[in-house]
């Protein structure tokens, strides 16, 4: 007989959230056109969310049958500190991108994360971040012409300087 893998910490909560979310979406799908017609705009969403709900319930049944994992903890195996800090940093990046601009936000993001994850000294992390941000900026802003929020940085002047540099007029 095949042995069941144990239930990981938080797995039951996640599964319950999936079932709850599926049932909510099923109700929303019913609200699109009800059972109006098989070709209605709500037909495929209704079937899709019904499939999700049925699968969610089957997964919940299997999850409940699993023995609980005793050797794992949420803090160590599911949401360890590096993951929590990284998610918070990505959120903070999105918040600061518009007001601060791409260059300072990216520099701060990389410096903090490299210092935290790799344990490098602040000057070393800052130096690596500076070089990386400069490379990404040159590649994506100048070569791929991707527009990024300038924020507090006078980006127009920087771009003009780079262009002048490549045109042989930089001083």
């Amino acid at each position: 007989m095949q042995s069941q893998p144990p239930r990981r910490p938080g797995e039951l909560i996640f599964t319950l959230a999936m079932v709850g979310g599926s049932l909510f979406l099923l109700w929303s799908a019913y609200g699109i056109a009800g059972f109006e017609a098989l070709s209605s705009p709500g037909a495929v969403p209704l079937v899709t969310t019904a499939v999700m709900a049925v699968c969610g319930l089957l997964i919940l049944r299997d999850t409940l049958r699993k023995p609980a994992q005793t050797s794992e903890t949420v803090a160590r195996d599911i949401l360890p500190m590096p993951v929590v800090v990284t998610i918070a940093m990505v959120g903070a990046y999105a918040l600061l991108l518009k007001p601060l601009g791409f260059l300072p936000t990216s520099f701060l993001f990389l410096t903090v994360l490299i210092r935290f994850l790799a344990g490098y000294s602040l000057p070393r992390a800052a130096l690596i971040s500076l070089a990386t941000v400069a490379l990404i900026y040159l590649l994506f802003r100048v070569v791929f012409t991707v527009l990024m929020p300038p924020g507090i940085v006078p980006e127009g002047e920087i771009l003009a300087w780079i262009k002048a540099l490549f045109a042989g007029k930089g001083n």
Partner: protein
Amino acid sequence: MDILNSLLVPILDLKLLALIAIGTFAGIYVGAIPGLSVTMAVSILISFTFSWEVYPALALMIGIYMGGVYGGSRTAILLNIPGAPAAIATALDGYPMAQQGKAGEAIGIVTVVSFIGGFIGIIALAVFAPLLSDFAIRFQPRDYFLLGVLGILLVGSLSGESLVKGIFAGALGVGLGSVGMDPLTYTERFTFGTDGLRAGVSFVAVMIGMFGISEGLMQLHTVNTPSVKQKISRIVPSWAQVRKHLPLGLQTSSIGTIIGALPGTGGDIAALIAYDHATRVTRNPEVPFGKGAIEGLVAPETANNAAVGGAFIPMLTLGIPGDAVTAIMIGALFIHGLNPGPMLMIEQPDMFWFIVSALTLANVFMLIFGLTGIKAFVKIVEMPRAVLLPVILLLSIVGAYAVGNSLTDVYWMLGFGVFGYFMKLYGYPLGPVILGVILSRLLDDNWRRAIISDQENLWMLLKGTLASPLSLVLFASVVLIFLAKTPLWGLVFRKKAA
């Protein structure tokens, strides 16, 4: 003559040639560095190349795809960490070879057989795609609908620990793809009255979140794993060695092409099936399988590279992705205003032959780059993940923002990234989600066309399905795959075997 002209486009245009070379070179590194996946790289790349012309964007992505599938073998051999899922089987014999001091020999033979496999997959694409395309014109809407269901079911059943979780993930993807205004009736679907959802959820944000952010977060669990250093010996294999393994390589290339061409399956499954085939047909390997058998490298590596050409067959002829990367490429073609399917082959055959040519060039570049610069390569792969991961995350954020210059997309990306991370932790496959998003429109449109043409009568639709040989085969495949994963199947067949 037109075909020849189209084939020559990437060869004569130096910019395109350079982009294919750069893509292949970058792909080898992307595929090799654990934590970077080809799917992740191609999804991030779409956001940066969406404003380009379609040929340069495709040239770069094709190079990354071809190089990346091969690159995964590098770390499988050197570190016993497959750089990509397609290289899982390669580690079984590659790493024992490296432990015996034959890392260079293993990399050399893998490079040459990957080239052979890749080439066979491309030939199959060039020969069979036009034939299938002619045939596909006769497909009814119900056939497309069944093909879409088959693709999601296949990838769901093969890529995760349970079929139910695979189906859940696929259905979630189809649901996500239907968010926004219905294109036929302009009815709002899953918008919850918010303006921001009327245009739908950004496909690129979902993709980068699911494949970039979630993978990056998963890698944080092992961020401080120290890198293992390997010494490199002889690299270029002898002709006698290549010739000896050619028959097996040709067999496993065919397996790879066929598996790659099945909707929803890709190089990882092809490689595992090919490895299994090699263990059965190789009577007396010089070294046992699992201990460093060359056959254990030849089989998966020919198969996974052959699967690249194979995966393009359903993508270009039917608009149905062969694997997650081709799913993303279909997304890229949509962004460039193209609609992959039989009509693309008829209306824009130059696009098809351009792809064939670009794949061939990428395969040649893979051979050249694969056999050179290995010692420098080993140093780069040893780069600490604690530095690499923040850079990948930054690229993901920039990529999500760049598509629509919208911070909302960054929040979507983060949301899907965290959601994808939990899905991975609890054993849900992510491939079916992205396949579902891509196939959502195809499923919805063709279901509605099919049922309208049968006067909204489910019984008539079923009768039509059973009366058409193609529909019947597709329908039977869907039912069989589903039944094969249920306890009922095991019960019946175990009883018979007993």
